[in-house]
């Protein structure tokens, strides 16, 4: 028989452990991406000489290069200069930085969507810049951005499998190691795929619902 059911059931606990690592990776990575992306978007908007163009270039560069290579650079090159973390930390930071470049664009469109009158009102009230940003602009900008962040969260959940290449033991790496040790790839890989689908499909449905709820009023 091609599909060994008993074997498939016996590897579920191991795969679930891998799935839990994947989820941790995704949540921490999204947190980093959400914060860094916001910082990048605000810096770009402030038009600071040297710094703003530099951040803009970084965003374009990160978006134009593969996550796998970025992970390799962090994992193989940085230790040469004495900077080394364990695989999980490296993975979280790299995927966080990678997605922050995408989120910066999302925030940018959110900030652009805030009507000019809001800026003018803040200026008319002579609000200091920090309060203008924190109390007027960002609360309105982030609201429209939330569903997009959800989409990127799901995307990151699937993309985090790439980090198995730098020895982060998440779902994909677990499936792969079960495969190499038992010479049976069909069950672990199929089940890993099913687990990814099981989480990401309902999640994307949820985000779709949120999208409709938070959509800016036309």
């Amino acid at each position: 028989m091609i599909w060994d059911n008993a074997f498939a059931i016996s590897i579920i606990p191991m795969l679930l452990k891998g799935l839990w690592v994947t989820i941790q990776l995704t949540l921490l990575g999204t947190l980093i991406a959400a914060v860094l992306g916001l910082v990048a978007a605000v810096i770009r908007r402030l038009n600071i000489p040297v710094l703003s163009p530099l951040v803009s270039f970084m965003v374009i560069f990160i978006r134009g290069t593969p996550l796998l290579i970025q992970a390799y650079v962090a994992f193989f090159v940085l230790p040469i200069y004495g900077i080394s973390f364990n695989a999980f930390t490296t993975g979280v930071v790299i995927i966080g930085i990678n997605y922050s470049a995408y989120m910066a664009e999302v925030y940018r469109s959110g900030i652009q969507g805030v009507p000019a009158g809001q800026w003018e009102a803040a200026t008319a009230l002579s609000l200091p810049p920090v309060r203008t940003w924190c109390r007027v602009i960002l609360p309105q900008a982030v609201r429209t951005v939330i569903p997009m962040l959800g989409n990127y969260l799901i995307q990151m959940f699937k993309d985090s499998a790439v980090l198995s290449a730098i020895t982060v033991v998440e779902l994909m790496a677990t499936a792969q190691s079960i495969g190499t040790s038992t010479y049976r790839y069909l069950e672990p890989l199929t089940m890993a795929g099913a687990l990814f689908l099981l989480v990401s499909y309902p999640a994307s449905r949820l985000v779709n619902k949120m999208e409709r709820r938070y959509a800016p009023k036309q």
Partner: protein
Amino acid sequence: MSAIIEYAPLLWQGLMTTILVAVLSGALCLLVAFSMGLARLSPHWIIRWPAGVFVEVFRGTSLIVQMFWFFYALPFFGIQLHPLTAAVLALGLNEGAYAAEVVRGAISSRAKGQTEAGIALGMSPALRLRRILIPQSIPAMLPPFGNVMVDLLKNTSLVSLVTVTDLTFRAQMIRSTTGETAAVFLTILVMYFLLSVLLTMLTQWMEKRYALDRRALAVQRKALREASLKDKVGAL
């Protein structure tokens, strides 16, 4: 840096493989995008549902899982794929599933009046699609298609994990023989970046080329030219 120059031919070969993988899977991606995207708009559930399942499965799981599945799990069914075939198949089907949603979204967001006018003129559904809905949707599809293609290009780096000797694979080889880790990885990072910049420029050019207003202008100009030509013929 000297290691890079010494091993440049190897990197070149890798680059060619990367481009080959990108072109082949890009073609497959377009094929899948239109067939699945249109199938999801079909009024018959027997066509719509399988396409929906296909798109959700390929979008809902990781590309890398799919690639490994084609490479390691298919042999259990007696199907042994060449690494390149498995890689192209996984990349094309995965990105095709994303692009299918682009096709579906672009076509279903056309103004309803266009379909109604087609019906009023007695056009068959296939003709409406071919002559009205698809041509009108192309400009709307181009920007998201460009994103999918850049994504596809970047994801070709994953084919190195199923032993396709692409740019990333060659870089790993050079790294393990020379130990020049930093130089090698930074070089290919820049190479990938240049490739995606080129691809972005190409799609931007196409966006301009196929922009609706530009076509409208061209049509107008042609009509004017023909009209003036007719005047001349009439004068004769």
